């Protein structure tokens, strides 16, 4: 497959009006911009889980690892550790990253693994036809909860912050330009970059007007201020009625896991003599 275009000719099967299109286009535009800057797209790898969102792996004409539900992050971590020169972008769903594979999210943040995580947070399991997720509001009537859920959502931004995240942003599939800018910033950030994207699910949870009425961009916000970040994150709890801030909530520089790991390496000796040494020590 050659990269005449950044979009493959695989048939796109997202519903009309699905927010995933916006994320796909935003990512394409960012990659085009990076490519124009001179970064080779041969070094970009896209990792996805399973869900509607994950089909992006089929649609983007770049290296990709279409993995399994919930495991986007450890795959992306392995790739990044294997070759720090790669730019690793992980696209996960909210079912993926917040339910099935939540632990990996916490640990990616804890370790500050140098990957970019885009969560296509439509607050529903799309591909399995509309069940609640950890960010669905209380009372959400999905197919597994016909009487409405009985649990409040958690706030994933707060969780990532508590886990040690160094780049925490929220965007929306309704605001293409800012989405693009933030994805670009996320990719540029060295360390774990996390963007929760409020994505419209046209079929099972169309929050377009709800979001439009409440979304605002963070202003006069000091991204480096932990307490401000906390306050802003807590403003909307993914449940009640409150203004929904978009933008980068928190950003700081920190050693990456990969950096520390490779920093450990002494000058590599050759394999056979290392083995001989090990054996001799055991004589």
């Amino acid at each position, binding site marked *: 497959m050659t990269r005449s275009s950044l979009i493959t000719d695989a048939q796109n099967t997202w519903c009309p009006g699905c927010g995933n299109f916006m994320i796909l286009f935003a990512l394409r535009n960012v990659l085009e911009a990076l490519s124009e800057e001179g970064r080779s797209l041969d070094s970009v790898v896209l990792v996805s889980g*399973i869900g509607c969102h994950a089909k992006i*792996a089929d649609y983007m004409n770049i290296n*990709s690892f*279409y993995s399994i539900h919930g495991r986007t992050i450890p*795959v992306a971590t*392995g790739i990044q550790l*294997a070759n720090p020169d790669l730019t690793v972008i992980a696209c996960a769903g909210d079912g993926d990253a917040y339910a099935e594979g939540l632990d990996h999210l916490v640990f990616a943040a804890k370790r500050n693994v140098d990957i970019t995580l885009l969560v296509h947070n439509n607050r529903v399991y799309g591909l399995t036809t509309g069940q609640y997720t950890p960010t669905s509001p209380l009372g959400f009537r999905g197919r597994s909860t016909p009487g409405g859920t009985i649990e409040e959502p958690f706030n994933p931004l707060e969780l990532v912050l508590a886990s040690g995240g160094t780049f925490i942003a929220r965007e929306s599939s309704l605001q293409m330009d800012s989405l693009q800018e933030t994805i670009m910033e996320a990719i540029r950030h060295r360390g774990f970059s996390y963007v929760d994207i409020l994505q419209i699910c046209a079929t099972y949870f169309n929050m377009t007007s709800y979001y439009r009425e409440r979304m605002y961009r963070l202003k006069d916000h000091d991204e480096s201020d932990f307490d401000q970040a906390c306050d802003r994150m807590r403003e909307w709890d993914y449940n009640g009625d409150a203004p929904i801030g978009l933008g980068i909530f928190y950003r700081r520089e920190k050693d990456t896991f990969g950096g520390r790991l490779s920093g450990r390496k002494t000058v590599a000796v050759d394999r056979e003599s290392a083995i001989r040494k090990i054996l001799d020590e055991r004589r």
Partner: protein
Amino acid sequence: MSEHIRAVSPITGVQVEIMNDVSILVGGRAGDGINSAGLIVAHLLNHIGYRVYMYFDYPSLIKGGHNFALVRGSGSPVGAHRNRADFILALNQDSIDLHGDLIRDETTILFDSGRVDADGIPVPVSEILKELDAPAVMGNSCIIGAFARSAGIEWAVLESVFRQKIPKGLEKNLQVARRGYDAAHVTQKIEPIGRETFPILTGNEAIGIGLLHGGLDAFVAYPMTPTSNILHFLAESAVDLPLDVVHPENEIAVFLMALGFAYAGKKAAVCTSGGGFCLMTEGFSLAGMAELPIVVVMGQRTGPSTGVPTYTAQTDLHFMIHAGHGEFPRLVVAPGDAAQAFTWSSLALSMAWKYQVPAIILADKTLCEGSYSFEQRAPPDIGEADSRMDPGEYRRYALTDNGISPMLHPPAPGAVIKVNGYAHDEAGITTEDADTIRIMTDKRKQKSASLKAAVEDLGSVIVRGKADASTAILCWGSNLSVCTEVADSLGLRLIQPVVLWPFPVETFQKALSGVERLVLVEDSAYGQLSMLISGYGFPTDDLVLRYDGRPNSVEELVARIQEVLA
């Protein structure tokens, strides 16, 4: 030593003796350093020309309890313990009380006279430590010293072993040992029989070194007995090597990270035991579908569930062969001793990469934590798969005659490399088209066939013992050594398939030629290998099963085999 195995083969009527055979029990509480003490004893024998084997028995606790090591030395390669002790080094009372069956008239018992009540040579360990102001943990140096003396091992040998093995606090340890040495007297001399030393490796270390030899770039693991020590060993070794060692949050992360490494072109392996492997099975199936090479070291222990974590079993064979949903090629090898562990770990990694399949090194606690005199044999070079393809035209799953597609890794200039756990077309794009699904399944089936052919070529079934005997012992994994010894002593054939999947049917059939009675020896309650071979039409006549977590000693197995053959 005076007493040898004297078994009369019911088949050949021949009485067999094993020469230069010595067995030593070292026992104490967890925390007394029994494992290290046993290893030092093994090295003493190693340095006077013996091949050694050590079985280490310990419960799942950190301090207290009863640990013991059974060290065996022999003029020829060994890998099994015996039901007798020529020497007992007792640091606790249990070392006497729980091992009555090992004690013979001629057994020399060396014991810490402060803690143990016994007949034999008392060693006033605590007094000596106190006098020398040495820490409690040096107690075993003291008793080792006493042992060396009573076995007639020269002080110089002990000193040189200590210099190599106990660099920390060497002088003090030597002082302590010397006092032990002086406290004893020669009872039974272990004759030096050579000067060549061999590295003494645990099965775990042999696996680790085999993987390194095979080109391991990354090792990812979450600790679990009996393979945790591979993680520890490789983490220690990584400093000097182009090797990344990562210990993530759990086994799911372990496996998926390792697949990430593989996608990026790094040869990766993981280790675990049953419970951890369960958590990897979903990723295992992904590796099958996405055709990602990966090696899992799977150390069996007594199950099901948490079972008996520090004891042995061979109960996961079928699970390994069938783990993961859907059908896909895989390799399962079960080495039987340190030499095989080295060879087949290296091969498993090479084969996983050549055939782009997941591979399992199926070990067990006896192998993993047993120590062996190691003789390195270079694994055969199986070559690599063809990876040539025009980058612009690159398709990760391009169809080929042997089912193996050229594998590139990012960044590969101009190539778009897509791996996918969905059914996919040649380019790696998801498909639901009936024909493509069928064709790609056939491709993976073809890969199975190629792998099967390679396995038949590799001599994947070992035959030992009396090659033309019509009664054969069948075994796999760590039962190799004890069965070999028993087959030799009883004049039987010994058959061990090292590769268990794809099962080397033709090679196995050849190994069976002329066999009229097949006796399976296995550490399980159901006879897993018997179930496997019966699927290929090979009947098993007798099952000699053991499932209490303990491996058979040579004598125990001789008795049980004689019983079924009687």
